[in-house]
């Protein structure tokens, strides 16, 4: 019952050239906004920040971090710079994994080792910012370091769903 209902409703909203007079205007506005977005194909990708947080969750894997990256397509996208956030994140980030990941996606400016004293340097913060937030993996895969299981990344969304035998 839900199926035909939802289908027909979506159809009406998409196809009708004139806005439905009974529906309120805010609804239509949202609808049009949505349509606009649909046609401007600007997609969001996975940042290295997320990669740095993810670890393989397969049953029996003791050290599922860091996931290896298989690159098919990487995109750079400018993001607002916020030094406070970076200082806050620095404690959480696994630095070696970030350096490794940024090299894999083709950015080798990050220093091998980093200390919290370096956070005062603007140059370092800019590099950190670029690596952490502006490099986006769009297509590719994440590979579990222990089992070699591939988690595909499609349109910037990693598919971390496990099979039944991996839970």
């Amino acid at each position, binding site marked *: 019952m839900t199926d035909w209902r939802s289908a027909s409703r*979506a159809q009406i909203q998409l196809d009708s050239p004139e806005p439905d007079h009974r529906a309120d205007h805010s609804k239509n506005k949202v609808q049009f906004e949505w349509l606009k977005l649909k046609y401007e194909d600007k997609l*969001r990708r996975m940042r290295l920040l997320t990669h740095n947080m993810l670890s*393989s969750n397969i049953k029996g894997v003791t050290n599922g971090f860091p996931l290896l990256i298989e690159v098919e397509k990487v995109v750079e996208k400018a993001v607002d710079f916020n030094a406070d956030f970076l200082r806050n994140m620095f404690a*959480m980030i696994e630095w070696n994994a970030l350096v490794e990941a940024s090299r894999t996606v083709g950015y080798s400016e990050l220093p091998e080792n980093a200390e919290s004293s370096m956070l005062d340097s603007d140059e370092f913060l800019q590099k950190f910012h670029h690596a952490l937030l502006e490099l986006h993996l769009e297509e590719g895969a994440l590979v579990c370091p222990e089992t070699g299981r591939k988690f595909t990344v499609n349109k910037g969304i990693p598919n971390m769903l496990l099979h039944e035998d991996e839970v």
Partner: protein
Amino acid sequence: MTSRPELQAPPEIFYNDDEARKYTSSSRIIDIQAKLSERAVELLALPEDGVPRLLLDIGCGSGLSGETLTEYGHQWIGLDISESMLSIALEREVEGDLMLGDMGQGLGLRPGVIDGAISISAVQWLCNADKSSHDPRLRLKAFFGSLYRSLARGARAVLQVYPENLAQRELILGFAMRSGFSGGVVVDFPHSTKKRKEYLVLTCGPPSLSSATPKGKAEDGESCSDEESSGDEQNQSVYVADRNRPRKKQKLNKKGKGREWVMRKKEQMRRKGNTVPLDTKYTARKRKARF
């Protein structure tokens, strides 16, 4: 009577392309989701130092709740099991990173990296067994266990839930407590059937003063302070006395429903979360004879 979506199909099937689109183009749902997530962020009680935090949105769907997080200036990672919902989120260009995953399989995050987690209307899905391999208890355990691990110490998780019944509520809360969280349930508008919303406010680590569960809301825009709630209790005891009043005594009073009655009713509606006109000197006053 609309039935609960949890009972119709598993989440990844229920939220198909059509349902996801419908969900995200309804201004009513957008409004409700925004309100719920604003309240969730409020309950997260992040320090107000203007530093963006890394938050987790569990069951982010099309990113409606994530947008609120972005408005507050935080970075977030969203997790959802429905591909259709996530592709709508992509089309809407949400600011956070998205991840396709099943919270019942554990979150798959490094320990201690997340500053806070919110979840809007998602956790109750875990109480259903949608596949033969699913055991709600194991899935709840995996979810809360991995959530506890991935949160930084002292971080909070605010999970808005629609439990189907008392047993579900106890089940969810029980597993949260067993995985080490402290905290409890905050109920907004407890007297209203429609506006009633439940939030699990969980703090990583042992109970302390800072992890005391905040109070629920009784009315829009203001939370119950201590004084108010104690006043309510007094009033309530009066109502009980009133209710037990013998009928005969009521009949003797032929003046009709007086100011006291009106005030009581207004208070009742207020507690339900309805908009009620202010109490003034005109409240429950009789009209002049010319009417």
